[in-house]
């Protein structure tokens, strides 16, 4: 029998339900089998014309239908499906009555092009100004657009569907959002405010403008052919990340509450940490101190030392800067162990699911703990000689894994790390 409290006297937070969706498919079973088989979910975009774009591939989720289509609508539908999967596994609460709050990582919401075009066509003129659009927006014809494009709309829908308690929080910490949603849930349970929390992260924003935005910042890979080979974390010829869609949901509970109801424990969120980088809007501080600090805070939060981490699920975006920075900072924290601990990047196969990535990768880390098998980093043909990680290249590897560090770094100086373990320490 393990103590229900951690070394710092706080309730231990465990995971009792998980749901996932990526470009590889729906659900844990499908995702895991494809992930360990080294399959890529990256494909040429068919949702909209790609003429004139530098990047023409992405990890889209094309098997979920949403009508009328919008990126926010897709984010919402994916979040709903992964939450259903997580709740079925956890067997917690009653239908539409989840006994705790919702923390939702979601991409910032805005009116999208299909709706803007509908409005433009409704003006019925060849030459018009923005004022003409404004003039015809009212009267109730487009009231559904208001609801759809409220920032809080996805969270409100999930809260009403699943009966979460209190005000659902919609959050964005850019590419660290998924990790932040988990961190908020962990903190609420540790403070004793709740015995359970629903942490969901979703991103369905592969649309023309989103691609163009990242393209203009030179962040995306342009190795379009073949698309499956575009995402090349830790490789010498990596040239950017691949946009992708996906969602992840985790049911978190206090160890005490989970054991009291006889729930199966899938893993432990042993530590979380975050640290802001004030150096630049899109680049990390060259000395890496904020990321180093983030990893150290996370280890301290878990009450662990670097030698207790036996796998790193890297942020590993495959941008030239990120992967180098991640190796240097990991080396500063882990010393020589940074070259021994097996490291992998799920983004080589599922792409970068942006707002969802932190949760998607936390779930893959928990599945790694469950199966004692580390998914590969595919497209690892030409290792970057300056990145001396022990990369699990191209083929999955069986390994004894007891504790995983999962990292997320994002625009706006957002850094967040999680430590996930098998059983309460």
């Amino acid at each position, binding site marked *: 029998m393990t103590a229900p409290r951690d070394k710092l006297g706080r309730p231990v937070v465990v995971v009792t339900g998980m749901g996932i969706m990526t470009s590889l498919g729906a659900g844990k079973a499908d995702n895991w089998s494809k992930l360990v088989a080294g399959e890529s979910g990256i494909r040429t975009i068919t949702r909209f*014309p*790609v*003429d*004139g*774009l*530098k990047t023409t591939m992405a990890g889209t989720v094309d098997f979920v239908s949403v009508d009328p289509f919008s990126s926010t609508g897709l984010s919402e539908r994916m979040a709903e499906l992964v939450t259903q999967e997580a709740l079925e596994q956890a067997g917690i609460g009653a239908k539409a009555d989840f006994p705790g*709050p919702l923390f939702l990582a979601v991409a*910032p919401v*805005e009116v999208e*092009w299909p709706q*803007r*075009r509908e409005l*433009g*066509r409704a003006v019925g003129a060849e*030459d*018009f*100004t*923005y004022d003409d659009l*404004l003039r015809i*927006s*009212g009267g*109730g014809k487009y*009231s559904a*657009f*208001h*609801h759809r*494009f*409220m*920032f*809080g709309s996805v*969270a*409100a829908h999930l809260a*009403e569907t699943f009966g979460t308690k*209190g*005000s*659902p929080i*919609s959050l*964005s*910490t*850019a590419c660290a959002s998924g990790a*932040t949603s988990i961190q908020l849930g962990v*903190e609420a349970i540790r403070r004793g*405010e709740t015995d359970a929390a629903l942490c969901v992260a979703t991103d369905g924003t592969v649309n*023309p403008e989103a691609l*163009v935005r990242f*393209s*203009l910042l030179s962040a995306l890979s342009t190795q379009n052919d073949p698309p499956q080979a575009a995402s090349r974390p830790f490789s010498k010829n990596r040239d950017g990340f691949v946009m992708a869609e996906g969602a992840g949901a985790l049911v978190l509970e206090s160890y005490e509450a989970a054991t009291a109801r006889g729930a199966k424990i899938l893993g432990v969120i042993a530590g979380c940490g*975050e640290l*802001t*980088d*004030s*150096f630049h*809007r*899109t680049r990390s501080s060259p000395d890496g101190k*904020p990321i180093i600090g983030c990893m150290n805070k996370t280890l301290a939060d878990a009450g662990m030392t670097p030698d207790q981490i036996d796998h790193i699920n890297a942020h590993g975006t495959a941008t030239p800067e990120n992967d180098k920075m991640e190796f240097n900072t990991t080396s500063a924290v882990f010393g020589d162990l940074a070259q021994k601990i097996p490291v992998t990047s799920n983004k080589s196969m599922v792409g970068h699911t942006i707002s969802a990535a932190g949760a998607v990768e936390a779930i893959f880390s928990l599945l790694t703990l469950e199966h004692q098998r580390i998914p590969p980093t595919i497209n690892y043909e030409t290792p970057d000689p300056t990145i001396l990680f022990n990369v699990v290249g191209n083929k999955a590897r069986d390994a004894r894994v007891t504790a995983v560090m999962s990292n997320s770094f*994002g*625009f*706006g*100086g*957002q850094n967040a790390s999680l430590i996930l373990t098998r059983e309460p320490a």
Partner: protein
Amino acid sequence: MTDTASKPGQTEVWITGIGLATSLGEGLDANWAALQEKRINVDEKGFAPFIVHPLLPVTFDSQIPKKGDQRQMEAWQRIGVYAAGLALDSAGIKGNKDILSKIDMVVAAGGGERDLNVDTGVLNAEAKGANAPGFLNERLMSDLRPTLFLAQLSNLLAGNIAIVNGLGGTSRTFMGEEVAGADALRIALSRIASGESDIALVGGSHNGERKDLLVLYEFGDFNLKNKFVPVWARKDHAGFALGSAGAFLVLESRAHAEARGAKPYAKLSSVVTDLARRKQGGDMEATLEKLWDKLPKRAGKGAIISGATGAEPATSEERDFLKKHADFPVRATGTMFGHTMETQFPLGIALAALSISRGALFPPNDSTGTEIEMQGAPTQIVVVGAGHWRGEGMALVEAV
């Protein structure tokens, strides 16, 4: 329902810094003076028939010294970074590297303005027959300013505050319109009260002078049109007038504040939030009543600062709730500052703390009799924030 009603043994949380940049002016004195004079700054012409409360211009250089930084932001971010700087000044921690390197940030944000010329350019060309498959892609690739994205991203308000002021603690951005501002305060308060954090910068900013936002709210017929009247007088002429404002607060544990000799404006005792279904009339009012009951007992001389928007049916439901507590003098910030969305709740907290610290509630500004005079110094002010569509929040600010 989640809440942060302070529990025995938990740390007291003080408001030690306030930063305001609004349509009435910048800083506490200018805003206080305008409230005393019942001055309201509305623009009825620039966006006619819509009415907005424009920002009273400020010199951004004083809080954002690098022009390069200013150029990387759109107005909503500049307003926010400016107000955040004022809050750090007010708390006496501007430039204090020890504190700024660990201060936690919770920001309530929407998104940034679009480039209206690009949008209308594309739509006009399409109306004239441009229908090649790659037309939108090509126009966006050539017309969008590369760094505009960063000025639009919600979490880049926090990012810019960190860059300009050298903040190095945690940074979380909450979205979700009005209640995001209340939840930001709720989470920051509970983290400090439980000892997870010592000091936090919390707030939001909003640029109400945006046609793309007017379009968004016009979809739901939420905009106030033609004639400005106080919030409580809009029942047959419903709607909100968007306002521009930045409101930031420095929250601090009592021990942390005392150790550095910081004086409190007031203490933040509790923040509670919820999501009423709003399927039937009375749902929202019932939720406000539940939140009211969750606040700590009120025994002092109380008042209510409301973020009522003027939109219906939310404003009528809130008025029904207020009628049940008619012994509390009420002030609606929406009348004086317009509706500043995510910023309205932090603005309400700022005005509550300011009123308590100055020993008087600001005067009523209302033609319907909903707002009544208050004699004497308030010691407890309840801040109410009910969203125009979803989300309800409430807080108790008390004299230390």
